[in-house]
Structure formats: C-alpha cells, structure tokens
C-alpha cells in the first residue's frame, strides 16, 4: 500500500528540451511497482509553495539495482524546482499508487498509442509485455519532432514504432489517431493501451471501441491526496450499473478500461 519514504536521486539527466529523467534508488518501490502505477512526489522539504505533491508515472524499473525512474516535462513551478535537484539528494516519495494496467491473459497482438509524455507509463508497460513475449507495436505522436518521446528506448527494445507529428516535422504528418485509424483498418489487434492528452485519448477510445477492440487508457487529473481520500481527482466513468459516475483517477485509475471511462463531459469539452 501507499507508503512514504525518502529515496535518493541516483541520476538526473536532461533528455530533451525541458525533459528530464530522474532515477531513484528504492528497492521497496522498484520491487513492487507494476506498470500504470504512479508515485506522488514531494517537491520541497521546506515551505509550503508548492504545497501539494506531484504525481508521476513509473517510466522504468531496474530491479537488479533497486532503481525506478520517472520521465517528466517541465511545465510549471513544481517541475521547474525538480529540474534543479541534484543526484545524491533525497526526495520523499509516496507510493506506488493507483491501479496498474491489466495485462491480457492470452497472447495477442497489442497496439499502444502514446501522445508526447504519455509515453512514460507505456515504456514500463512495453518492457513487461516483452518479458511475457507479447507482440507489441506503438504509435508515437506529438505536435512537433522535439516533443516526440521514446524513440531511443524503442530502438533499444527492438519494438516496432511509427511516428506522427502534427506539423509533419518527423514521420507521418497528422495526429497519432490518424495513424491508429489506418493501423486498425489494416491489422488485427487484440488489445490497446494509450496514454496522452485528453482529446487524443477520446479519439483513441472511440476508434478502438467502434472496432470492438478492448483496451485501457491512463488518465491524468489534478490530484490532492493521491490516495482516494479527497475526491479531488474525479473523472466521469461508468459505474457498476452502467450509470455515469465520478471515479477517482488516483485510486480507481489512473488506468481505466476503454468501456469504463467516459469522455463525454471531460475537461476539454
């Protein structure tokens, strides 16, 4: 369960413009965490601004060395402060938290769709899928070339990937969902995973559902507690009886099945 501990930053590298990878030493986290889960990071030890913790998906785990990693983009105060932390320093970590991705029980063809930083949790997932000898392909989408995440990782893992940029600066010109549409028409996929911005996920879900493909998405919502106590991270989803209700991204999610989540009155609408 949600434990609290200090973990040492082992490595902190710039991976691109405003993008960093942070590796922590924490055998307790790395040995237990499952793809799709996240940690809730305390930004500052002293002072109350920023006040809340910040959630980050687990991007990678190195069980042998007891490490886990996050990949993050600097977007505001909290991540700006994080970017200045140095290897050797400690940060307070809560987690692993949240409901992980479920892995398909039978072998099958899997397609993943990552929008920008949405690649982070999918990377850890792909590694697990490969370990189980699953066949996986991934579509990476972004607005422009420098926002594409994951190419190097995927080359290293030997996973097939295709790129889409909205401005056409790399790969296919257009949205990741245009590529997905094409792919779904061409191939037979059994399961889909996706993480990225809300409008993309919405399209991904409707494309997959219209073809009867099952799958899961990882959602983001502003969080306060991270453990299910505050109801701050509510997201509309179908309840047990199919009725629309609010589920907690931190506890029921961040992963939701395509059937469960409702994109009908989400924040981008």
């Amino acid at each position, binding site marked *: *369960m*949600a*434990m*609290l501990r200090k973990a040492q930053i082992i490595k902190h590298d710039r991976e691109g413009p405003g993008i960093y990878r942070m590796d922590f030493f924490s055998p307790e986290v790395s040995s237990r965490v499952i793809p799709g889960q996240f940690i809730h990071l*305390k930004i500052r030890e002293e002072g*109350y*601004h*920023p*006040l*809340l*913790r910040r959630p980050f998906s687990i991007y990678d785990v190195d069980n042998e060395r007891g490490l886990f990693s996050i990949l993050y983009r600097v977007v505001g105060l909290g991540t700006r402060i994080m970017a200045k932390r140095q290897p050797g320093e400690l940060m307070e970590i*809560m987690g692993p938290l949240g409901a992980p991705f479920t892995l398909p029980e039978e072998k099958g063809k899997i397609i993943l769709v990552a929008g920008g930083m949405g690649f982070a949790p999918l990377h850890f997932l792909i590694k697990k899928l490969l370990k189980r000898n699953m066949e996986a392909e991934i579509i990476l989408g972004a607005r422009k070339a420098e926002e594409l995440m994951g190419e190097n990782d995927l080359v290293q893992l030997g996973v097939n990937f295709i790129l889409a940029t909205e401005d056409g600066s790399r790969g296919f010109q257009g949205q990741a969902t245009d590529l997905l549409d094409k792919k779904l028409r061409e191939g037979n996929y059994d399961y889909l995973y996706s993480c990225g911005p809300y409008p993309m996920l919405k399209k991904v879900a409707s494309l997959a559902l219209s073809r009867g493909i099952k799958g899961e998405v990882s959602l983001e*919502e*502003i*969080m*306060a*507690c*991270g*453990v*299910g*106590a*505050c*109801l*701050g*991270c*509510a*997201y*509309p989803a179908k309840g047990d009886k199919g009725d629309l*209700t*609010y589920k907690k991204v931190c506890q029921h999610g961040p992963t939701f099945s395509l059937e469960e989540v409702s994109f009908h*009155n*989400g*924040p981008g609408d």
Partner: protein
Amino acid sequence: MDLGIEIAGIKMKNPVMSASGCFGYGEEYSAFYNLEEMGALVVKGTTLEPREGNLPPRIAETPAGILNAVGLQNPGIDYVIKKELPALKGAGTPVIINIAGNLEEEYLELAKILDPLEEVQGLEVNISCPNVKQGGMAFGTDEKAAGSLVKAIRSVTSKPLIVKLSPNVTDIRGMALAVEKEGADAISLVNTFLGMAIDIHRKKPVLGNLVGGLSGPAIKPLSLRMVWQVSQEVKVPVIGMGGIMTAEDALEFIMAGARAVAVGTANFVNPYSIPEIVKGIRKFMEEHDYEDLSPLVGAAWKGV
C-alpha cells in the same frame, strides 16, 4: 500528562481531529497508521441522497493553498450507514458525521436517521460549504437562518451538535453567538474561503465549478483570527481549523482559544500529519511542564 479533552460530551484522547472531506471515511489513512491515534474522526460531508459532485477539475493549487470544488460528492446517508460506518466501529476513535443539505428538512431527516446510531458520537452540521449552489451557504452567512436551523436540528437529536461555520462573513462572532444560543454544543471554525483561479491561456476559471474553497496554510492567519475572536465570545468549545500543518500551528489555535483542532489539507501533503501533530503537542507540553491542555486553551488572550 494527559492530552485528553472533552467536546460536547465526546471524550477524545487528544485534541487532534480530521477535517471533514479531507479524510474520506478513514479507510485510506488507516493504511498509514492506526486511527486510534486520532482525537476524533470527522467523515466527509454526507447528504440525504447521493451527490455526484462537481465537474472536474476540482482542485487548483494556489500559493500555500488549494482551491477545491468537490461539491459534496458522497454516496448518501443510507450507503454511509450500511457500508462505511460498520468499518469504523472498531476504529478506536470517536466518529463524527458531517451533515449537509440544501433544505432544513434534509438536515432534520439526517439528524433523525443518525440520532439512534451508537457508532456515531456526534454530528457536525455543515452550514458553510461554498461549493454547492443551492442552500448550505445561505445558512452559513445569515445569523437568523443559521440559528433557526440549529434550533430545529437540536429538537430532533440528542447527539452532540457541532456547528461548522463559514468564514465568508462580516461578523463571525455574531454567527457563533447565534448558533450557540440555539443549542450548538460546540463550534467548528472554519470551512473554506470562497476563491477562484483563472487560466489565462484558456481565459476561463480553472475549476469546473468556476469558484472553490480555499484551504491550507495560506488561510491560517485568517482562521486563527476567527478562532481568537469567537472563543472570547462563546461559552461552548471551539474546534479550530484552517491551515494547520504542524504541532506549532495547532498550538497557535489552542492558544487562540480552540479546545480541539482539525487537520484537513495537511493530510494530502503528509499522510502522517495527525499523529505527528499529536506527538508535537505532547512534546511541547512535556518541555513546558503542562499536565493537561486546559491552561493552554486561550492562553494568548487570557494572558496566562
């Protein structure tokens, strides 16, 4: 040395409670520590019927504070009694139900339903939620409306009645005196301050509900002042809250006149806030040779 206190007949082993809405029904934080360590557990605001709550986003961070507009999402009193309370029976700490509604009848119905339940040690009447369109807030800003609501609830329950006031008023003393007069056994101060944030890129309010309630360290000077003012006026005990993060903060509220304190937002930042605050108060008392809390309550105006 004894940290124990009594509020309206509710015996607590220490003065540190959870603030409603910031601790769910206790389950989540019981994974971090034994709830016996709390002075009392105040659960999420509960209404007669289930409420689905407000549109997301519901949380926006501000400097040293957070805005929330959860909108009283809760599964309704029946579900709470059936599914949540049984789990709390063995919690080893008094359980206080925070009740809310739009109409007087809803409050009365809730009070009647809860009155016979042994597992409920007290009611906290929330007349101050800023995130619900209809009602609630009106009771919280009008002395007459607040007084007559409390009077009506008083007549249908023998449970200890804590009335939780809104800080969004000109005269918090007047509000406190009005509810005390009509039968409040204790007064909780304060609920959140009505605020907002605007996303300048979308040119729209950040919260789905447009406005929300501000909590956290940012409001501490304001809630502390209200506790200071009210506790000098009323005879019933005051429960202080609003920005308490540490034992030092809790002691400020106690010295301002609070007999107990509640901890809300701090739980989100540090899940161990409540037991750590209890420990810190104990340490302070040890270091300064206090046998019990009473000489500290209101010390800042009693001039002790």
